[in-house]
């Protein structure tokens, strides 16, 4: 059989095909080196809008990079964590073991992100999150970075605003039962009580809760001067509206995650006077070059205005792209590049990562006035560290 000419020809053909396939795998389109990023995001579930928005920002960044780069062909493999920690870990393992991602973007929320850290450490692959904000993540791993400030910044800021600016002496807290809500609750409580305030009641609600009247009835019973909402725009909007229905007269304070046009759609007039911090740094009205470039590119591709979560996803992807362009598609090199990032100008402002992988941004105060989200304070100079 070995002497058969047809058989030998067939072996050569098959070998050639296999070799071509292998070569084809190593070299991307146009002879560029393929680089794969993984993106484990909450694409479905209770915070699917965040996953969807950040994925658009990531896609936009990769499109631009693929047009501009001569050396690398970037691709991202999206996996859906469903806002679920176990699913996030499984998705992370898949992008690391099957797709061989050199770096990962994710998750949008803190619970799944915290769950992924041990796997990240074991694999020695860097991960950058667009919006996970739990204080627990600070310094949890040298492979973890985030472009969204820790809750400790905005939680402490709002506690200070409540006590020194609005002179509130008692503030009830309604928080969503996840790492994000629990983190904010913890920081707010510690700071507010250290400044002489009291927290008469703290109530956690589940992520799928839609009827907040039983919670608000309990809050109303303790007559707080203020109510601090540590949740997202969907539950925040429902809470504001239902609080007005119940006649709860208190000043409502919230978190950065409440800034979304859909909050106004849900709450309507009930949102008037709602105060919240703005800590992500994305200012749609800014004329900075990076912000303008992002906004124009997004509008041209998606035919609508971008939101802050999209900008955060965009910055995550661009940071990884900048790292690869500088040091190549090597996970260790990317990690070192990110750790040494100083004064990077992104769509969400100027960023630097500290030793804990956290980003420092100025927190400003915003409010809902006449159906619009407006700044109530003067912008502070951005710190570049």
């Amino acid at each position, binding site marked *: 059989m070995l002497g058969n000419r047809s058989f030998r020809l067939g072996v050569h053909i098959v070998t050639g095909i296999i070799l071509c396939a292998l070569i084809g795998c190593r070299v991307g389109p146009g002879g560029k080196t393929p680089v794969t990023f993984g993106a484990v995001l909450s694409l479905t*579930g209770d915070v699917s809008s965040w996953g969807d928005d950040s994925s658009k920002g990531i896609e936009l960044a990769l499109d631009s990079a693929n047009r501009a780069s001569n050396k690398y062909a970037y691709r991202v493999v999206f996996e859906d964590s469903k806002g679920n920690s176990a699913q996030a870990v499984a998705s992370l393992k898949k992008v690391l073991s099957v797709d061989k991602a050199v770096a990962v973007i994710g998750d949008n929320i803190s619970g799944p992100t915290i769950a992924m850290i041990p796997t990240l450490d074991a694999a020695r692959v860097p991960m950058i999150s667009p919006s996970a904000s739990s204080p627990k993540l600070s310094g949890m791993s040298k492979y973890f970075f985030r472009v969204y400030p820790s809750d400790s910044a905005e939680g402490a800021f709002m506690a200070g605003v409540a006590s020194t600016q609005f002179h509130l002496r008692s503030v009830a807290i309604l928080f969503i*039962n996840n790492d994000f809500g629990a983190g904010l609750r913890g920081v707010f409580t510690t700071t507010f009580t250290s400044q002489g305030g009291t927290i008469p009641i703290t109530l956690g609600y589940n992520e*799928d809760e839609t009827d907040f009247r039983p919670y608000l009835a309990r809050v109303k019973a303790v007559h707080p001067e203020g109510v601090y909402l540590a949740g997202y725009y*969907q539950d925040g909007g*429902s809470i504001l509206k239902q609080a007005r229905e119940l006649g709860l007269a208190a000043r409502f304070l919230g978190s950065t995650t409440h800034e979304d046009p859909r909050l106004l*759609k*849900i709450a*309507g007039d*009930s949102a008037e006077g709602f105060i919240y911090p703005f800590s992500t740094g994305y200012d749609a009205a800014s004329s900075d070059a990076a912000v303008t470039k992002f906004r124009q590119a997004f509008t041209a591709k998606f035919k609508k205005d971008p939101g802050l979560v999209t900008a955060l996803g965009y910055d995550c992807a661009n940071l990884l792209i900048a790292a690869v362009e500088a040091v190549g598609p090597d996970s260790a090199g990317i990690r070192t590049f990110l750790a040494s990032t100083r004064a990077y100008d992104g769509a969400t402002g100027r960023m630097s990562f500290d030793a804990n992988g956290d980003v420092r941004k100025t927190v400003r105060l915003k409010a809902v006035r006449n159906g619009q989200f407006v700044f109530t304070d003067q912008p502070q100079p951005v710190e570049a560290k």
Partner: protein
Amino acid sequence: MGAILGAAVVSGSIYALISLGFALAFRISGVFNLAHGILLVAAGYANYGLGTLLGIPPWLSIPASILLVSLIGFAIEGGGIPLAKRAGLKPVDIMVLSWLMLVVLQDVLIIIFSSTSIYMGSANVVPGWALLGARITPLQLFTVSASLAAGLGFFLMARFSVSGREITAVGDNPLLASICGVNVKRVVGLNAAAAALLTAGAGVLFSYQDRLDPTLGMRFSIVAIVATLAGIRLGPAGAVLGAFAFGLLESLVLYLVDPGLRDTAVYFCLLVVVLVTYRRRLLPETG
């Protein structure tokens, strides 16, 4: 206490409509159709899709969505379940099939609407009227009235009308009913249509009062089962009373115990009513 009673009445009214629909279908089929709750959710989403996404005015989108979802419900209750029974499938197998149907319909909604929860009501607070120490809006009052009227109507129909007796006859023994001259297919069909219409109507009303999510279907199915079994001695109209009783229990748990125990209350009630009301038929005593 007023807030508790008000909440009980308002939530009980939605539960009553869906439970009445479930009870009507259950009276004839004897099957726990777990896909029943997803019809309520689908009606809300259909109204959202037609009204908000396609821009069709409410006077058209509301009846269209009710009709569309009623057709799906009719296909399941009036077509699928009787066919499965005639083919010899046991009630537990049909229940498993209905669960699979719920999964399919839920996933279809997730694909079409991307897991977004919807709310069709007005953003502005409607002052409403004071009732039992709580405030009730015109829409909520309409829902309560509709559920009570439907319950009373079906109770009177079941007791005093020919149609009601036909439903009872077909539910007890379709073969004997057929021998006695009852058009079983017509009764099954009309009953299924009524059940589906009630549920779809409840879905549209709910979407104007509270946020709706594709994953709520199972919870509504379980509430309907609990209410139906609780009021089983009074027939389908008993489901209305069972629903209001469940609404009261749920409100007591939410307002007096812990608001996070809503689902716990639902499933605990399920376990209790099944254990209390279910009878083992044709099996020997084992001591």
